């Protein structure tokens, strides 16, 4: 008889335990209980989010592929496979290894689909850098990403870093990977064909991360709690060999299916490969290569040792597969076979230790969770703008914003990442999105991650829509057609109705914006329980988006290129200060409603910019995000260190307070620069799509001057802005 405290401490409820007994028609063994606990956890089985995830559109402009572990789109004869995943809790405990193994895991999801990883992205969120532990976290996470990603030879090309009090005690580390394959050479994650062999490949199994899946990923945890044995150490060298060996093995045609052992290791890979293949599987644990003696069967089944995979190989071809892996000095051993029933049967020294129908493991219960709008929100959304005093020193405000950690340059971070290896990165980090050419074609892809979680906190539905809109806008500014999304949904405890309300609204927001923009959601990840004794994180539905550039020579970057060009603003600046960086950094308030988002307007602005870029009319394009128009203009001036170009903005018109027009974060705005002779052509395009168009000034000089009426309210040297913006993050980190 299993004691309630045992299954409860594994994260199973009384009802769930009863259901296990019903399914098995007997008491579970320890191994079985452990297997159910991880398979039914949020991490693997999505019991609390599955209903809502169905809302995300699976169709878009490009044919969509939804695989077992990742998804993608088809572009000509290529499949672009991508996915994002969180490694929040492991990183909070041990930032370097936590982030490193996060990269390792997401990249395995890509190459086990048969795609060669071509780029990684990272979306990072921490509490304020005034707190030493947050500095330690940021340094450690960046170190982990560079350590793992650089060694692998997969460029880390883009990302974002935000700072907010809500991430004190629970940082977010979301990592995304993109891979490319010939569309008919993709691999599946199933086991099929009675008698085919199940092979274990990669590193040996140790007691790493045992229980990590359910204990680390699905429970609130308190800082300093003893979680030591669960820390996994990343081994990028082995992973690099695994990539090469796997792609070589897949090319033989002898591999039926393949799955990486990520969270819940062997449990997850055996049961899911059997379940997807509608097959049974029998495995002998004694055959599993191990690092430590005397491991219990359940420990072997739960281990999260890194850099391992399970492969279903055609009978008789085992030797050939083994040869490939051993060429790369990797283990590859037959540990079992596909059977003709639908049961996962785990043996230890011949004795059955688990015998479960594959489907009953993989079909986790589904819960319709209660939700309720948080009571504080109505109050929070009220912002009396007349109570906010307009600044006297606009120069000071702009400098302050440029130096704020969220807005300042992230060069200190991305210079530590090899972002050029594989020689595809045609737009390097430092512009709105990075662009990678696809060798052998004329095309390129652009990639970005985005989410302003303060918007989602103030208004989860609209905030999530904005995350999608902004990601798309960043791609458009780089010359790409927004194509498809992967998401990483980071929230608090879903069993609390206020948190679940945030989750529900964010998912609905992502779904509606993606549908409107005709973008499919090809993959994603849910991370709940992101809270600590210090509180809950802001709702953070991180959007990873890729776009397609039809002609790799028609890409665009955000910085002004030369003097005497015309500066255009597409979109409208409204009197919106709610949720802005300005309101927080200058007035110390997080209040108001999130800026409006009119998806029709958004689309008009994006179409105009993209069309103009594709026609070669545009010299630079940059969207307005945190810090509003003034920061966007400053970034246009300073983000190419080798050639900084000033600007005079003297014909800006708006219907709002000056600080709102300059620092407010009205959506759907893009700053373009172009030669004089292109202006009217761009105006025509804007008219055709119905995008608000105004000429606001011209490039040139060594200063950014912004005039309102006849008054110069901003007048800063590009050098001065650059200094503030470029060094700020590093000096905060090194404090």
């Amino acid at each position, binding site marked *: 008889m299993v004691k309630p405290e045992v299954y409860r401490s594994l994260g199973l409820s009384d009802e769930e335990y009863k259901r296990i007994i019903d399914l098995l028609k007997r008491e579970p063994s320890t191994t079985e209980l452990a297997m159910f606990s991880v398979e039914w956890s949020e991490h693997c089985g999505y019991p609390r989010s599955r209903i809502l995830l169905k809302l995300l559109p699976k169709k878009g402009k490009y044919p969509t592929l939804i695989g077992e572990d990742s998804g993608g789109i088809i572009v000509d004869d290529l499949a672009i496979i991508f996915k994002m995943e969180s490694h929040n809790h492991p990183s909070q*405990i041990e930032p370097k290894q936590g982030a490193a193994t996060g990269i390792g895991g997401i990249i395995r999801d890509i190459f086990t689909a048969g795609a060669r990883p071509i780029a990684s992205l990272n979306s990072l969120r921490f509490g304020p850098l005034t707190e030493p532990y947050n500095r330690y976290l940021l340094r450690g996470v960046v170190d982990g990403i560079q350590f793992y990603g650089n060694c692998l030879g997969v460029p880390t090309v883009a990302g974002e870093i935000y700072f907010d009090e809500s991430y004190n005690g629970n940082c977010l580390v979301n990592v995304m990977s993109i891979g490319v394959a010939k569309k008919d050479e993709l691999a599946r994650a199933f086991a099929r064909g009675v008698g085919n062999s199940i092979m274990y490949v990669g*590193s040996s199994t140790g007691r*790493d991360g045992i229980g990590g899946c359910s204990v680390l990923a699905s429970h609130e945890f308190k800082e300093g709690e003893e979680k*030591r044995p669960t*820390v*996994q*150490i990343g081994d990028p*060298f082995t992973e690099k060999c695994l990539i090469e060996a796997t792609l070589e093995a897949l090319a033989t045609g002898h591999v039926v299916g393949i799955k990486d052992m990520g969270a819940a290791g062997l449990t997850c890979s055996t049961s899911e490969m059997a379940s997807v293949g509608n097959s049974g599987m029998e495995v002998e644990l004694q055959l599993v290569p191990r690092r430590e003696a005397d491991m219990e069967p359940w420990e072997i089944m739960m281990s999260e040792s890194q850099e391992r995979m399970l492969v279903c190989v055609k009978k008789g071809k085992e030797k050939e597969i083994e040869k490939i892996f051993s060429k790369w*000095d990797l283990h590859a051993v037959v540990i079992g076979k596909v059977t003709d029933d639908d049961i996962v049967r785990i043996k230890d020294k011949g004795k059955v230790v688990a015998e479960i129908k594959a489907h009953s493991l993989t079909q986790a219960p589904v819960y319709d969770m209660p939700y309720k709008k948080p009571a504080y929100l109505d109050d929070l959304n009220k912002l009396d703008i007349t109570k906010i005093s307009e600044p006297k020193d606009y120069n000071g405000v702009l400098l302050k914003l440029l130096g704020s950690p969220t807005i300042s340059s992230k060069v200190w971070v991305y210079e530590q990442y090899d972002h050029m290896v594989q020689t595809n990165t045609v737009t390097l980090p430092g512009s709105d999105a990075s662009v990678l050419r696809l060798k052998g074609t004329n095309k390129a892809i652009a990639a970005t991650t985005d989410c302003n979680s303060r918007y989602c906190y103030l208004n989860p539905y609209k905030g999530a829509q904005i995350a999608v809109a902004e990601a798309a806008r960043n791609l458009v500014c780089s010359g790409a057609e927004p194509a498809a999304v992967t998401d990483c949904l980071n929230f608090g405890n879903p069993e609390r109705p206020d948190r679940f309300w945030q989750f529900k609204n964010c998912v609905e927001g992502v779904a509606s914006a993606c549908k409107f923009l005709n973008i499919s959601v090809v993959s994603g990840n849910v991370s709940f329980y992101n809270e600590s004794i210090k509180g809950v994180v802001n709702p953070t539905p991180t959007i990873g988006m890729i776009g397609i550039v039809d002609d790799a020579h028609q890409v665009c970057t955000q910085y002004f290129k030369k003097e005497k060009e015309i500066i255009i603003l597409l979109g409208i600046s409204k009197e919106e200060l709610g949720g802005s960086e300005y309101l927080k950094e200058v007035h110390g308030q997080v209040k108001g409603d999130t800026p409006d988002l009119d998806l029709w307007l958004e689309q008009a602005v994006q179409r105009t910019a993209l069309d103009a870029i594709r026609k070669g009319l545009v010299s630079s394009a940059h969207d307005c995000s945190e810090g509003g128009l003034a920061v966007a203009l400053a970034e246009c001036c300073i983000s190419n260190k080798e050639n900084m170009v000033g600007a005079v903005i003297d014909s800006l018109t708006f219907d709002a307070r000056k600080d709102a027009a300059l620092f407010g974060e009205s959506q759907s705005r893009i700053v373009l620069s172009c030669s004089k002779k292109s202006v009217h052509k761009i105006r025509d395009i804007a008219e055709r799509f119905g995008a608000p168009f105004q000429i606001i000034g011209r490039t040139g000089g060594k200063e950014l001057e912004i005039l309102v009426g006849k008054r110069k309210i901003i007048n800063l040297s590009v050098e001065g802005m650059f200094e503030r913006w470029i060094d700020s993050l590093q000096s905060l980190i090194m404090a």
Partner: protein
Amino acid sequence: MLKAEIYITLKKTVADPQGLTIKHALDSLGYKEVEEVRIGKLVTVKLNINDKKEAEQRLNEMCKKLLANPIIEDYSFKIEEV
């Protein structure tokens, strides 16, 4: 003046991929007698302190705070006079 040698090693339960790779390398160079390799850090510190007891206490602090990562590492040290 005291000199301390601080030895920082990965905890026994933690995997050491570096050590494994180096073991393989030694193996293929013909050093078959090598059963295990683990990689750690050696931090040599000169301290402007004369009292060993005091040095011990300070070193323990430094190790816990900065030099070793208690989540995955153990440390020990040896103090001598110079």
